[in-house]
C-alpha cells in the first residue's frame, strides 16, 4: 500500500482505532499482534508471494540471534560459534538479497566482460521480481544478530516482537533502516502515546505528504521531461533538471521517511532520524551524517568499522571509504550508474580527508562577513558536488550521463524561465522549513507551535496538497531500491 493513497489512509485509521482501544486497556502485547497482522496485510498488498520470504528471513535471523546470544559451549569455542552463526546468517541474508537483486546484473556484466575478450557465454538470467523493501528489511534484520554479537542487546524472548521489528509497516518498504537495539526495546513493553507524540506525528505525516505530493512530484515533472529524452534539451534546461532532481530526491525520500516516522509516532514509537537538513552540509562527511542517516550509519557500523575504519592508516582508510561507498551505491540498485555514484561519494570523502581540518570542519559560527562567505561557499559547493552525483544516480545509462554533462551551459529555451520559476516556487517551502529546522534544532518544531498557528499552517499545507497533488498516484523513488 502506497502511503500517498486513500487506501493507506483508511487502513491506517482502522489500525489506529483498534490499537487505541487496546491501548486504553494497556494491552501492549495485543497491540503488537495487531501491528504485526497489519504489517503483514500491508506487505501482502504489494505481493502475497513474498510474505513467505519476509517470514522466512524473520525466522532465520531470530534463530541466529538466539544462537548467538545463548552459546551452549565453553567460552573459547562459544566465541567461534557466535562468529560462525553471525557469518552464516549474514551470508544467508546477503545471498537472498543478492539473488533477487543482483544475480542478473552480475551475470549480464560478466557475459559482457567475457564477450569483450572474445569469450562467448550464454547468459543465465533468473526471472525474479525484486520483492519490495527487500534491501531495507534485510539490512534491518541483519542488525539484530550483529547487535547481539557485539553485546549491545540480548536476544528477544518474543518471536512476535521480532517479527514485528522486521516487518513493521511504516518502515518495511523504504526505511528508515532501524537498529534492533533501538526499535526492538520499544516493542517490548507498554508505550505511551502522548499528546506530544501525536502532535509530532501529525506534523511529520502532513509535512511528509506535502514534500512528496507537492514538491517532489511537481519538480519531478521537469526531471522526467529531460531524462525522458535528454537530446531535446541543452544548457540551462539540463542544469535545472539536475537541480530539480536534487530537490526531488530529498523531498521524495525525506517525505517518505517523515510519513513513516509520523505514523510510528502515532503508535508511540520513535524511529531514527533519517535526514537532518542534508543540503546544509559543508563537506562530504558532514553530508553523510545528514543524508539517509540510517543507511550511512549502517554501512559505517557494519562494514566500514569491521573493515578497519580509520584505524589502519590513511591509505587503508581511503580504501575502506571507497569500498563502503561503492557498496552503498550498489545497494541502491543493480546498475553501474549507482556504483559510479557511490564511487563519486567515496572519492569526495577521500579527497576531503586529505584536506585535513579544512575539509572536515563543520563550524557554522558566524564571526564576520568572511565566515558567512566561507560557510555559504562551502555549503553551496557541497550542494553542487552532491547534485553532480545525483545526475549520474538518476541516469539510466552512461551515454545519457555523457550527454547531460557535455551539454550543460548557459543557453536557454522557451521553457527555461518557467522551469526556473517552478523549481524556485516548489523548493522555497522546503528551504524555509529546513532553515527553521536548522535554527530551532528540531525537525518537529512545528509541533511545538501554538495550536491556532499550527492549524493555520497545517491548513495551508493541506490546501497546497489538494491543489498541487498529481492526479495519479506516483510511487516513492526509494521503493525501487
Amino acid at each position, binding site marked *: 500500500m502506497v502511503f500517498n493513497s486513500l487506501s493507506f489512509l483508511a487502513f491506517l485509521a482502522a489500525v489506529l482505532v483498534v490499537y487505541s482501544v487496546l491501548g486504553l486497556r494497556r494491552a501492549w502485547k495485543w497491540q503488537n499482534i495487531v501491528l504485526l497482522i497489519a504489517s503483514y496485510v500491508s506487505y501482502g498488498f504489494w505481493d502475497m508471494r513474498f510474505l513467505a520470504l519476509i517470514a522466512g528471513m524473520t525466522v532465520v535471523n531470530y534463530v541466529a540471534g538466539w544462537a548467538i546470544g545463548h552459546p551452549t559451549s565453553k567460552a573459547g569455542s562459544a566465541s567461534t560459534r557466535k562468529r560462525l552463526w553471525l557469518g552464516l546468517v549474514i551470508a544467508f541474508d546477503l545471498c537472498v538479497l543478492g539473488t533477487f537483486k543482483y544475480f542478473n546484473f552480475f551475470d549480464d556484466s560478466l557475459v559482457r566482460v567475457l564477450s569483450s575478450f572474445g569469450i562467448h557465454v550464454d547468459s543465465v538470467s533468473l526471472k525474479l521480481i525484486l520483492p519490495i523493501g527487500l534491501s531495507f528489511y534485510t539490512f534491518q534484520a541483519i542488525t539484530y544478530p550483529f547487535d547481539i554479537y557485539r553485546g549491545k542487546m540480548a536476544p528477544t524472548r518474543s518471536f512476535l516482537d521480532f517479527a514485528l521489528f522486521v516487518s513493521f509497516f511504516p518502515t518495511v518498504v523504504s526505511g528508515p533502516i532501524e537498529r534492533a537495539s533501538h526499535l526492538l526495546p520499544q516493542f517490548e513493553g507498554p508505550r505511551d502515546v502522548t*499528546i506530544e507524540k*501525536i*502532535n509530532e506525528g*501529525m506534523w511529520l505525516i502532513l509535512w511528509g505528504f506535502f514534500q512528496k505530493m507537492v514538491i517532489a512530484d511537481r519538480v519531478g515533472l521537469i526531471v522526467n521531461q529531460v531524462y525522458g529524452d535528454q537530446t531535446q534539451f541543452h544548457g540551462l534546461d539540463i542544469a535545472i533538471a539536475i537541480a530539480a532532481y536534487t530537490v526531488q530526491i530529498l523531498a521524495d525520500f525525506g517525505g517518505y521517511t517523515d510519513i513513516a516516522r509520523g505514523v510510528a509516532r502515532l503508535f508511540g514509537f520513535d524511529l531514527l532520524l533519517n535526514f537532518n537538513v542534508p543540503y546544509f552540509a559543508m563537506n562530504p562527511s558532514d553530508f553523510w551524517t545528514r543524508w539517509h542517516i540510517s543507511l550511512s550509519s549502517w554501512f559505517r557500523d557494519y562494514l566500514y568499522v569491521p573493515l578497519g575504519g580509520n584505524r589502519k592508516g590513511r591509505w587503508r582508510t581511503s580504501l575502506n571509504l571507497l569500498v563502503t561507498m561503492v557498496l552503498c551505491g550498489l545497494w541502491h540498485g543493480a546498475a553501474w550508474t549507482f556504483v559510479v555514484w557511490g564511487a563519486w561519494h567515496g572519492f569526495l570523502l577521500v579527497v576531503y580527508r586529505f584536506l585535513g581540518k579544512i575539509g572536515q570542519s563543520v563550524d*557554522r*559560527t558566524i564571526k564576520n562577513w568572511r565566515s558567512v562567505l566561507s560557510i555559504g561557499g562551502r555549503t553551496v559547493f557541497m550542494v553542487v558536488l552532491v547534485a553532480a552525483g545525483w545526475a549520474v544516480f538518476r541516469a539510466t545509462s552512461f551515454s545519457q550521463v555523457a550527454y547531460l554533462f557535455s551539454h550543460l551551459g548557459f543557453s536557454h529555451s522557451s521553457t527555461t524561465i*518557467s522551469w526556473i*520559476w*517552478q523549481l524556485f*516556487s516548489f523548493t522555497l517551502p522546503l528551504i524555509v522549513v529546513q532553515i527553521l529546522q536548522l*535554527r*530551532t*534544532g*528540531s525537525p518537529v*518544531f512545528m509541533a*511545538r*507551535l*501554538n*495550536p*491556532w*498557528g*499550527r*492549524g*493555520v499552517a*497545517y*491548513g*495551508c499545507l*493541506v*490546501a497546497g496538497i*489538494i*491543489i*498541487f*497533488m498529481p492526479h495519479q498516484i506516483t510511487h516513492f523513488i526509494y521503493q525501487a531500491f
Partner: protein
Amino acid sequence: MQEQADRLRSLLTRIAGPKGWAGIAATVCCVLATLLVLNTAAYYYLQEQPKSAHGPEAVIGARGPLSGWHGLIDLKEPVDTLILGDSEAGVNLVTGPIADRLGGNIINLGNNAYSSLLMDAWMLEYYVQKFGPPRNVILLRSCYSYQYSRILEFMAVVPLEWGYWDRLGTVPDWKAGELQKLFISKYAVLDSDSDVLTYRLMHPLDLFAQPYTKITPLSYYSKGTMIASTMKNYNREKWPWEFSPFRPSSDSMNALTDMSNLARSLGFQFYIAIGPEWDEAYQDPGRQAKVSGMEKWLTQFTDSQYVHLVLTTPMTFREDQMQNVDHLRPGAERQYTEAALGEIVSIQNIMSAVQAKPVGLASVVLDKREYTIGEQPTVTLSLTTGTSIDTTASVEGDVSCLIRPSGKSDSEWVYRAPATAVVAHYGDNTEVSLTLNVGKLGKAGAYDLIVFLRQSVGRLSFETRIERLNMIKVK
C-alpha cells in the same frame, strides 16, 4: 547558537493556546477553518476569473461553458436570435449574415461538445426567464455530442446558484450519488478546480491580468482562426464513435423535448441544423447510417410551425475546407452559413407569405459608374411597398446587401453592407443608402449586387431578394 535556538523555540510556544487533547482539537478545527476560508476565496476568485485566453483550463475545457454563461448573465438587452450548440455552432455559423437576414441582434453561444444538450436547454431557459422568448433559436451540434450525457464538472462551473436546474426547468434524471459529487465539484474548488488553480498560482503575473473572455452579442462576417488540420487522423480505426450507430442520450432527449415544447408554448422559431460532413468520410455507409439515424431521431421533435430541421441533406466539404471533422475553415463556414440561412429564410417565407406586404425596389443607384480595387461602393435603394388596393401598407424591417463575383454563389461575397433598419410606407419611395464596408473588393471584374429586403411579419421575417446581375464594375 544554542541560545538562539532556545529563544526561537520558546518564541514559538509563548503564545497561549489550549493544551492536550483540546490543543489537538483546536488544531484540527483551525485546519478545517483555514481550508474553508481558502476554498471560499478560491471559489469567488474563480467566479470572477473563470477563463483566461491561455492556460490548461482552456485546453481541458472544464471551464469551457463558462464563457457562454457569463456572456448570457451579463447580457443587458434581449437578442433576436440565439445560436446554441457546441463548437460546431461556434465555428461554422457566422452571425453577421444571420443577423442581417433574420433581423435584429444575435449572440452565438456555441460552446463545448462535452457540455451536453442540457447546457443548451438551460441557457435557453435562462434567457427566456430573463428576457422572454427570442424570435429565433438555431441549434447546431456535432453528431456524437447528441450521445453525451451530462458531465458534472461542467454542471459545476455554471455560475448560478445551487439547484439551478430545478429553477430553469430541465431536470436531469439523477443517478445515486451524483448530486453529492456535483456539490463537491461545484463548491470544493480547491480539488475540483485544482488544475486551474495550479496554473494560476504558477503564473502569478496573470492572476488578475486576464479578463474572462465572455461571449458577447456580436455580428461578424468571417472567422479568422485557423488551426492545423487534424483531418489525417480521422478514420474508422482511430475514431470509431464517428461511424458507430447513433445512440442519443437520455439527457439529449430531455433537453430537446423541453426546448421544443418551450418553442411551441412561447411561439419562437427553433431550427435544428445538421452539421457539415467531410465528403470522404460520408462515403462510408456507417457514417451515412449514423447521420441518417440522427436525422430520424431529431424529426420526432419537429412540427410545421415552430421546430424545424435544417440542411437535412448534409453539406459535404473537401478535406482542405475543414480544420477538423467538425470545424470548417474560413470561407467554407460562409458556405455552410449561407446554406443554412437560405433554408431558414425559405421556411420563414413560406410561413409568413400570406401576411407579408408586397415590397420592392423602385430604383437602385450606385454612387459611381465604375470602381477601383479597394473602394467601398455606396448603394442608394428606393423602396416601394403596398398596392393600389392596400394603401395603408407599411413595412418595418431591414435592408442589407452584398456584392459577389458575377455568376458565383452568395457565400463568395466580397463586400457586404450590414442591415439597416427601415420603415417604408405606401406611396413614399423610402430611400436607404447602404455602404458596403464589410469585406474587400480585391479583383477587377463584374459583380452582382444582391439586395435583401427583410420585413417583420409578427415574430417571423419575410425576405424579398432582389438581384442586379453584373451591376458593379471594378477596374
